[in-house]
Protein backbone atom coordinates (compact mmCIF):
# COMPACT_ATOMS: atom_id res chain seq x y z
CA UNK A 1 0.00 0.00 0.00
CA UNK A 2 2.78 2.52 0.64
CA UNK A 3 3.64 2.05 -3.05
CA UNK A 4 0.10 3.01 -4.00
CA UNK A 5 0.04 6.04 -1.73
CA UNK A 6 3.40 7.16 -3.11
CA UNK A 7 2.08 6.75 -6.64
CA UNK A 8 -1.02 8.76 -5.86
CA UNK A 9 1.03 11.44 -4.11
CA UNK A 10 3.41 11.69 -7.06
CA UNK A 11 0.55 11.92 -9.53
CA UNK A 12 -1.07 14.62 -7.45
CA UNK A 13 2.17 16.55 -7.16
CA UNK A 14 2.57 16.31 -10.93
CA UNK A 15 -1.04 17.16 -11.74
CA UNK A 16 -1.73 20.03 -9.33
CA UNK A 17 0.82 22.55 -10.69
CA UNK A 18 -0.33 21.76 -14.22
CA UNK A 19 -3.92 22.38 -13.16
CA UNK A 20 -2.74 25.63 -11.60
CA UNK A 21 -1.10 26.71 -14.84
CA UNK A 22 -4.28 25.88 -16.73
CA UNK A 23 -6.21 28.04 -14.25
CA UNK A 24 -3.78 30.88 -15.02
CA UNK A 25 -4.68 30.56 -18.71
CA UNK A 26 -8.40 30.46 -17.89
CA UNK A 27 -8.16 33.54 -15.65
CA UNK A 28 -6.39 35.41 -18.48
CA UNK A 29 -9.13 34.53 -20.97
CA UNK A 30 -12.00 35.36 -18.60
CA UNK A 31 -10.19 38.56 -17.55
CA UNK A 32 -9.95 39.70 -21.17
CA UNK A 33 -13.70 39.10 -21.58
CA UNK A 34 -14.50 41.08 -18.41
CA UNK A 35 -12.18 43.93 -19.46
CA UNK A 36 -14.55 44.77 -22.33
CA UNK A 37 -17.20 45.86 -19.82
CA UNK A 38 -15.36 46.65 -16.57
CA UNK A 39 -14.55 50.36 -16.09
CA UNK A 40 -12.05 51.36 -13.38
CA UNK A 41 -13.33 54.96 -13.16
CA UNK A 42 -16.60 56.51 -11.98
CA UNK A 43 -18.92 54.38 -9.87
CA UNK A 44 -17.00 51.10 -9.95
CA UNK A 45 -19.35 49.36 -7.51
CA UNK A 46 -22.31 50.09 -9.77
CA UNK A 47 -20.36 48.85 -12.79
CA UNK A 48 -19.53 45.56 -11.03
CA UNK A 49 -23.15 45.14 -9.93
CA UNK A 50 -24.28 45.71 -13.51
CA UNK A 51 -21.85 43.05 -14.71
CA UNK A 52 -23.13 40.65 -12.08
CA UNK A 53 -26.86 41.27 -12.37
CA UNK A 54 -27.74 42.90 -15.68
CA UNK A 55 -25.26 42.12 -18.43
CA UNK A 56 -25.97 38.70 -20.02
CA UNK A 57 -23.73 35.97 -18.53
CA UNK A 58 -21.85 38.61 -16.51
CA UNK A 59 -22.32 36.62 -13.28
CA UNK A 60 -20.83 33.57 -15.01
CA UNK A 61 -17.73 35.33 -16.33
CA UNK A 62 -17.18 37.08 -13.01
CA UNK A 63 -17.35 33.81 -11.10
CA UNK A 64 -15.22 32.06 -13.71
CA UNK A 65 -12.54 34.75 -13.41
CA UNK A 66 -12.72 34.73 -9.61
CA UNK A 67 -12.52 30.94 -9.31
CA UNK A 68 -9.75 30.48 -11.89
CA UNK A 69 -7.66 33.27 -10.33
CA UNK A 70 -8.11 31.93 -6.81
CA UNK A 71 -7.33 28.35 -7.88
CA UNK A 72 -4.22 29.45 -9.75
CA UNK A 73 -2.83 31.21 -6.68
CA UNK A 74 -3.85 28.45 -4.26
CA UNK A 75 -2.16 25.81 -6.44
CA UNK A 76 0.86 28.05 -6.94
CA UNK A 77 1.06 28.39 -3.16
CA UNK A 78 0.76 24.59 -2.76
CA UNK A 79 3.53 24.14 -5.35
CA UNK A 80 5.84 26.54 -3.48
CA UNK A 81 4.93 24.96 -0.15
CA UNK A 82 5.88 21.53 -1.49
CA UNK A 83 9.30 22.86 -2.56
CA UNK A 84 9.72 24.55 0.79
CA UNK A 85 8.73 21.54 2.92
CA UNK A 86 11.00 19.26 0.88
CA UNK A 87 13.80 21.79 1.49
CA UNK A 88 14.54 22.17 -2.21
CA UNK A 89 16.18 25.53 -1.46
CA UNK A 90 19.23 23.44 -0.58
CA UNK A 91 19.59 22.21 -4.13
CA UNK A 92 18.13 25.11 -6.14
CA UNK A 93 20.29 28.04 -7.17
CA UNK A 94 19.45 31.21 -5.30
CA UNK A 95 18.23 32.71 -8.58
CA UNK A 96 15.78 29.85 -9.27
CA UNK A 97 14.51 30.03 -5.70
CA UNK A 98 14.12 33.82 -5.89
CA UNK A 99 12.09 33.47 -9.10
CA UNK A 100 9.77 30.97 -7.38
CA UNK A 101 9.18 33.20 -4.34
CA UNK A 102 8.85 36.36 -6.43
CA UNK A 103 6.25 34.65 -8.64
CA UNK A 104 4.27 33.67 -5.54
CA UNK A 105 4.41 37.22 -4.14
CA UNK A 106 3.23 38.63 -7.47
CA UNK A 107 0.41 36.05 -7.56
CA UNK A 108 -0.85 37.24 -4.18
CA UNK A 109 -0.51 40.84 -5.31
CA UNK A 110 -2.60 40.15 -8.42
CA UNK A 111 -5.29 38.59 -6.19
CA UNK A 112 -5.12 41.60 -3.90
CA UNK A 113 -5.55 44.09 -6.75
CA UNK A 114 -8.52 41.99 -7.93
CA UNK A 115 -9.98 42.28 -4.42
CA UNK A 116 -9.68 46.09 -4.61
CA UNK A 117 -11.23 46.18 -8.08
CA UNK A 118 -14.52 44.71 -6.78
CA UNK A 119 -15.21 48.33 -5.85
CA UNK A 120 -17.31 47.42 -2.82
CA UNK A 121 -16.70 48.50 0.76
CA UNK A 122 -14.16 45.71 1.42
CA UNK A 123 -12.26 46.50 -1.77
CA UNK A 124 -12.15 50.25 -1.09
CA UNK A 125 -11.00 49.72 2.51
CA UNK A 126 -8.34 47.22 1.42
CA UNK A 127 -7.03 49.78 -1.07
CA UNK A 128 -7.00 52.56 1.51
CA UNK A 129 -5.23 50.38 4.07
CA UNK A 130 -2.61 49.43 1.48
CA UNK A 131 -2.11 53.09 0.57
CA UNK A 132 -1.78 54.18 4.21
CA UNK A 133 0.63 51.34 4.96
CA UNK A 134 2.91 52.57 2.19
CA UNK A 135 2.50 56.14 3.45
CA UNK A 136 3.69 55.00 6.88
CA UNK A 137 7.17 54.32 5.47
CA UNK A 138 9.20 57.24 6.87
CA UNK A 139 11.36 57.92 3.80
CA UNK A 140 9.93 57.73 0.28
CA UNK A 141 6.59 56.29 1.45
CA UNK A 142 4.57 59.00 -0.29
CA UNK A 143 6.30 58.44 -3.62
CA UNK A 144 6.06 54.66 -3.30
CA UNK A 145 2.35 54.77 -2.49
CA UNK A 146 1.68 56.86 -5.61
CA UNK A 147 3.37 54.19 -7.72
CA UNK A 148 0.62 51.74 -6.67
CA UNK A 149 -2.50 53.65 -5.71
CA UNK A 150 -3.71 57.26 -5.52
CA UNK A 151 -6.71 58.74 -3.69
CA UNK A 152 -9.61 60.43 -5.47
CA UNK A 153 -11.33 59.60 -8.72
CA UNK A 154 -8.39 57.53 -10.05
CA UNK A 155 -8.39 55.28 -6.97
CA UNK A 156 -9.04 52.08 -8.94
CA UNK A 157 -7.00 52.96 -11.99
CA UNK A 158 -3.49 51.97 -10.85
CA UNK A 159 -4.63 48.66 -9.25
CA UNK A 160 -6.42 48.01 -12.56
CA UNK A 161 -3.24 48.75 -14.50
CA UNK A 162 -1.28 46.30 -12.34
CA UNK A 163 -4.04 43.68 -12.39
CA UNK A 164 -4.58 43.69 -16.14
CA UNK A 165 -1.32 44.78 -17.70
CA UNK A 166 1.76 44.59 -15.54
CA UNK A 167 1.33 41.59 -13.22
CA UNK A 168 -0.01 38.98 -15.68
CA UNK A 169 2.89 39.70 -18.04
CA UNK A 170 5.44 39.60 -15.22
CA UNK A 171 4.06 36.34 -13.84
CA UNK A 172 3.87 34.85 -17.33
CA UNK A 173 7.50 35.83 -17.92
CA UNK A 174 8.70 34.40 -14.61
CA UNK A 175 6.94 31.06 -15.11
CA UNK A 176 7.68 30.86 -18.86
CA UNK A 177 9.77 27.71 -18.40
CA UNK A 178 6.82 25.87 -16.86
CA UNK A 179 4.50 27.21 -19.55
CA UNK A 180 6.77 25.74 -22.25
CA UNK A 181 7.14 22.41 -20.45
CA UNK A 182 3.60 21.85 -19.21
CA UNK A 183 1.20 23.61 -21.54
CA UNK A 184 0.90 20.69 -23.97
CA UNK A 185 -0.84 18.79 -21.14
CA UNK A 186 -4.34 19.01 -22.59
CA UNK A 187 -5.80 16.73 -19.91
CA UNK A 188 -5.11 19.18 -17.11
CA UNK A 189 -6.48 22.06 -19.18
CA UNK A 190 -9.69 20.11 -19.84
CA UNK A 191 -10.22 19.19 -16.18
CA UNK A 192 -9.41 22.69 -14.97
CA UNK A 193 -11.92 24.16 -17.44
CA UNK A 194 -14.58 21.67 -16.40
CA UNK A 195 -14.06 22.28 -12.68
CA UNK A 196 -14.11 26.06 -12.97
CA UNK A 197 -17.05 25.92 -15.38
CA UNK A 198 -19.15 23.86 -12.93
CA UNK A 199 -18.16 26.15 -10.03
CA UNK A 200 -19.08 29.30 -11.95
CA UNK A 201 -22.37 27.75 -13.02
CA UNK A 202 -23.48 26.51 -9.62
CA UNK A 203 -22.05 28.94 -7.07
CA UNK A 204 -23.46 32.45 -6.86
CA UNK A 205 -21.02 35.37 -6.49
CA UNK A 206 -20.49 36.61 -2.94
CA UNK A 207 -22.70 39.46 -1.81
CA UNK A 208 -20.85 42.77 -2.31
CA UNK A 209 -21.20 45.41 0.40
CA UNK A 210 -22.15 48.84 -1.02
CA UNK A 211 -19.46 51.47 -0.25
CA UNK A 212 -21.79 53.57 1.93
CA UNK A 213 -23.40 50.69 3.86
CA UNK A 214 -22.61 50.78 7.59
CA UNK A 215 -21.19 47.43 8.72
CA UNK A 216 -19.75 46.52 12.10
CA UNK A 217 -16.69 44.66 10.83
CA UNK A 218 -14.91 44.50 7.50
CA UNK A 219 -12.62 41.62 6.61
CA UNK A 220 -9.67 41.74 4.25
CA UNK A 221 -8.89 39.03 1.69
CA UNK A 222 -8.32 35.57 3.23
CA UNK A 223 -4.56 35.62 2.60
CA UNK A 224 -4.12 38.91 4.51
CA UNK A 225 -6.23 38.09 7.58
CA UNK A 226 -3.03 37.42 9.55
CA UNK A 227 -1.74 40.90 8.68
CA UNK A 228 -5.14 42.42 9.50
CA UNK A 229 -4.89 40.89 12.98
CA UNK A 230 -1.31 42.11 13.43
CA UNK A 231 -2.46 45.62 12.52
CA UNK A 232 -4.91 45.62 15.44
CA UNK A 233 -2.05 45.29 17.91
CA UNK A 234 1.07 46.70 16.26
CA UNK A 235 1.93 50.03 14.61
CA UNK A 236 1.17 50.00 10.84
CA UNK A 237 4.83 49.98 9.80
CA UNK A 238 5.59 46.92 11.96
CA UNK A 239 2.40 44.92 11.55
CA UNK A 240 1.81 45.69 7.89
CA UNK A 241 5.28 45.92 6.39
CA UNK A 242 8.30 45.06 8.54
CA UNK A 243 7.17 41.73 10.04
CA UNK A 244 5.61 40.34 6.82
CA UNK A 245 8.56 41.77 4.87
CA UNK A 246 11.02 40.11 7.23
CA UNK A 247 9.33 36.72 6.77
CA UNK A 248 9.27 37.07 2.98
CA UNK A 249 12.91 38.20 3.10
CA UNK A 250 13.82 35.07 5.12
CA UNK A 251 12.10 32.96 2.47
CA UNK A 252 14.13 34.64 -0.27
CA UNK A 253 17.42 34.22 1.59
CA UNK A 254 17.02 30.51 2.48
CA UNK A 255 19.42 29.17 -0.20
CA UNK A 256 22.16 31.58 0.92
CA UNK A 257 22.02 30.70 4.63
CA UNK A 258 24.31 28.19 6.32
CA UNK A 259 22.86 24.82 7.52
CA UNK A 260 22.11 25.97 11.09
CA UNK A 261 20.54 29.28 10.07
CA UNK A 262 18.66 27.50 7.30
CA UNK A 263 17.09 25.09 9.81
CA UNK A 264 16.22 27.96 12.14
CA UNK A 265 14.61 30.01 9.36
CA UNK A 266 12.74 26.95 8.11
CA UNK A 267 11.08 26.34 11.48
CA UNK A 268 10.47 30.07 11.99
CA UNK A 269 8.62 30.20 8.66
CA UNK A 270 6.65 27.02 9.41
CA UNK A 271 5.59 28.46 12.79
CA UNK A 272 4.58 31.78 11.18
CA UNK A 273 2.61 29.96 8.50
CA UNK A 274 0.74 27.86 11.09
CA UNK A 275 0.02 30.93 13.20
CA UNK A 276 -1.18 32.87 10.14
CA UNK A 277 -3.43 29.97 9.12
CA UNK A 278 -4.85 29.68 12.65
CA UNK A 279 -5.61 33.42 12.73
CA UNK A 280 -7.17 33.29 9.26
CA UNK A 281 -9.43 30.41 10.24
Amino acid at each position, binding site marked *: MPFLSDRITNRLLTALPRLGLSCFGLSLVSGIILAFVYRPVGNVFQNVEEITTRIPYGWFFRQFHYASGQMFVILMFAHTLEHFLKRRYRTYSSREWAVLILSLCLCFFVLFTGFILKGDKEGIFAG*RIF*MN*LLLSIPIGG*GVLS*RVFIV*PGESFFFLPYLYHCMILPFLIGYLIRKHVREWMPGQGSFFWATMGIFVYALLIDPFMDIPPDAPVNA*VKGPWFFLGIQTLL*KFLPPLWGGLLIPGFLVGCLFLLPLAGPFLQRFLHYLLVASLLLGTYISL
Partner: protein
Amino acid sequence: MNRRGFLARVLWGVLCTIGAAISAYPVLSFITHKKITSKTVTFNPQDQASTVTYKEGVYLVKDGPTPYALSSTCTHLGCTLNYDVVAERFRCPCHGSVFDRSGKRLSGPATKDLRRIPLSQAENGDLVVVLEL
Protein backbone atom coordinates in the same frame (compact mmCIF):
# COMPACT_ATOMS: atom_id res chain seq x y z
CA MET B 1 41.11 39.27 -12.47
CA ASN B 2 43.93 41.85 -12.44
CA ARG B 3 43.74 45.27 -10.85
CA ARG B 4 43.03 47.07 -14.13
CA GLY B 5 40.19 44.67 -14.96
CA PHE B 6 38.70 45.08 -11.48
CA LEU B 7 38.86 48.89 -11.68
CA ALA B 8 37.28 48.83 -15.15
CA ARG B 9 34.41 46.72 -13.80
CA VAL B 10 33.87 49.00 -10.83
CA LEU B 11 33.89 52.07 -13.09
CA TRP B 12 31.45 50.42 -15.46
CA GLY B 13 29.16 49.52 -12.54
CA VAL B 14 29.23 53.10 -11.20
CA LEU B 15 28.51 54.54 -14.66
CA CYS B 16 25.59 52.12 -15.15
CA THR B 17 24.15 53.02 -11.73
CA ILE B 18 24.40 56.76 -12.46
CA GLY B 19 22.85 56.21 -15.91
CA ALA B 20 19.99 54.18 -14.42
CA ALA B 21 19.36 56.84 -11.75
CA ILE B 22 19.37 59.65 -14.35
CA SER B 23 16.86 57.72 -16.48
CA ALA B 24 14.73 56.61 -13.52
CA TYR B 25 14.34 60.06 -11.93
CA PRO B 26 12.15 61.67 -14.64
CA VAL B 27 10.12 58.47 -14.99
CA LEU B 28 9.51 58.29 -11.23
CA SER B 29 8.73 62.02 -11.04
CA PHE B 30 6.24 61.64 -13.88
CA ILE B 31 4.37 58.62 -12.57
CA THR B 32 4.27 59.76 -8.95
CA HIS B 33 3.18 63.36 -9.61
CA LYS B 34 0.83 64.35 -6.80
CA LYS B 35 -2.36 65.94 -8.01
CA ILE B 36 -4.14 67.73 -5.17
CA THR B 37 -7.87 67.27 -5.46
CA SER B 38 -10.62 68.42 -3.19
CA LYS B 39 -14.37 68.12 -3.00
CA THR B 40 -17.03 70.28 -1.44
CA VAL B 41 -19.57 68.71 0.91
CA THR B 42 -22.67 70.75 1.67
CA PHE B 43 -24.96 70.12 4.63
CA ASN B 44 -28.26 71.85 3.94
CA PRO B 45 -30.60 72.72 6.86
CA GLN B 46 -32.45 69.36 6.56
CA ASP B 47 -29.11 67.52 6.93
CA GLN B 48 -28.42 69.43 10.13
CA ALA B 49 -31.42 68.08 12.04
CA SER B 50 -29.72 65.27 13.98
CA THR B 51 -26.79 65.48 16.38
CA VAL B 52 -24.42 63.54 14.12
CA THR B 53 -24.89 63.48 10.34
CA TYR B 54 -22.73 61.65 7.81
CA LYS B 55 -22.24 62.83 4.26
CA GLU B 56 -19.56 61.89 1.69
CA GLY B 57 -16.68 61.32 4.08
CA VAL B 58 -17.59 64.00 6.65
CA TYR B 59 -19.39 63.81 9.99
CA LEU B 60 -21.20 66.98 11.01
CA VAL B 61 -21.57 67.08 14.80
CA LYS B 62 -23.98 69.44 16.56
CA ASP B 63 -22.80 68.93 20.09
CA GLY B 64 -23.32 72.44 21.44
CA PRO B 65 -23.94 75.92 20.15
CA THR B 66 -21.21 75.65 17.48
CA PRO B 67 -21.35 72.70 15.06
CA TYR B 68 -18.10 71.17 13.85
CA ALA B 69 -17.04 68.79 11.07
CA LEU B 70 -14.90 65.68 11.54
CA SER B 71 -13.24 63.61 8.85
CA SER B 72 -14.84 60.15 8.80
CA THR B 73 -11.46 58.62 7.93
CA CYS B 74 -9.87 56.59 10.70
CA THR B 75 -6.47 58.05 11.60
CA HIS B 76 -5.02 54.51 11.81
CA LEU B 77 -5.25 53.22 8.23
CA GLY B 78 -7.98 55.19 6.52
CA CYS B 79 -11.16 53.09 6.84
CA THR B 80 -14.46 54.98 7.11
CA LEU B 81 -15.75 55.13 10.69
CA ASN B 82 -19.27 54.15 11.73
CA TYR B 83 -21.17 56.16 14.29
CA ASP B 84 -22.63 54.13 17.14
CA VAL B 85 -25.73 56.10 18.14
CA VAL B 86 -26.24 54.22 21.43
CA ALA B 87 -22.68 54.52 22.75
CA GLU B 88 -22.13 57.89 21.03
CA ARG B 89 -18.80 56.70 19.68
CA PHE B 90 -17.12 56.48 16.27
CA ARG B 91 -15.90 52.94 15.60
CA CYS B 92 -13.54 51.64 12.92
CA PRO B 93 -14.87 48.46 11.27
CA CYS B 94 -11.37 47.38 10.11
CA HIS B 95 -9.14 47.37 13.20
CA GLY B 96 -11.44 48.46 16.02
CA SER B 97 -10.27 51.98 16.93
CA VAL B 98 -12.82 53.99 18.94
CA PHE B 99 -13.24 57.80 19.10
CA ASP B 100 -15.66 59.91 21.11
CA ARG B 101 -18.08 62.40 19.59
CA SER B 102 -15.55 65.21 19.70
CA GLY B 103 -13.12 63.06 17.68
CA LYS B 104 -10.83 62.23 20.61
CA ARG B 105 -9.17 58.82 20.34
CA LEU B 106 -10.35 56.47 23.11
CA SER B 107 -8.97 53.01 22.28
CA GLY B 108 -7.63 50.76 19.52
CA PRO B 109 -4.56 50.95 17.30
CA ALA B 110 -5.11 54.56 16.11
CA THR B 111 -2.81 57.02 17.86
CA LYS B 112 -4.25 60.35 16.69
CA ASP B 113 -7.59 62.09 17.20
CA LEU B 114 -9.94 62.55 14.26
CA ARG B 115 -9.16 65.43 11.95
CA ARG B 116 -11.38 68.49 12.33
CA ILE B 117 -12.24 70.19 9.05
CA PRO B 118 -12.99 73.93 8.85
CA LEU B 119 -16.67 74.60 8.39
CA SER B 120 -18.16 77.68 6.75
CA GLN B 121 -21.74 78.86 6.73
CA ALA B 122 -23.39 80.04 3.52
CA GLU B 123 -26.02 82.79 3.45
CA ASN B 124 -28.84 80.28 2.92
CA GLY B 125 -27.90 78.38 6.09
CA ASP B 126 -25.92 75.59 4.38
CA LEU B 127 -22.79 74.40 6.15
CA VAL B 128 -19.97 73.86 3.67
CA VAL B 129 -16.86 71.73 4.08
CA VAL B 130 -13.97 71.53 1.62
CA LEU B 131 -12.40 68.09 1.91
CA GLU B 132 -8.90 67.56 0.57
CA LEU B 133 -8.45 64.11 -0.95
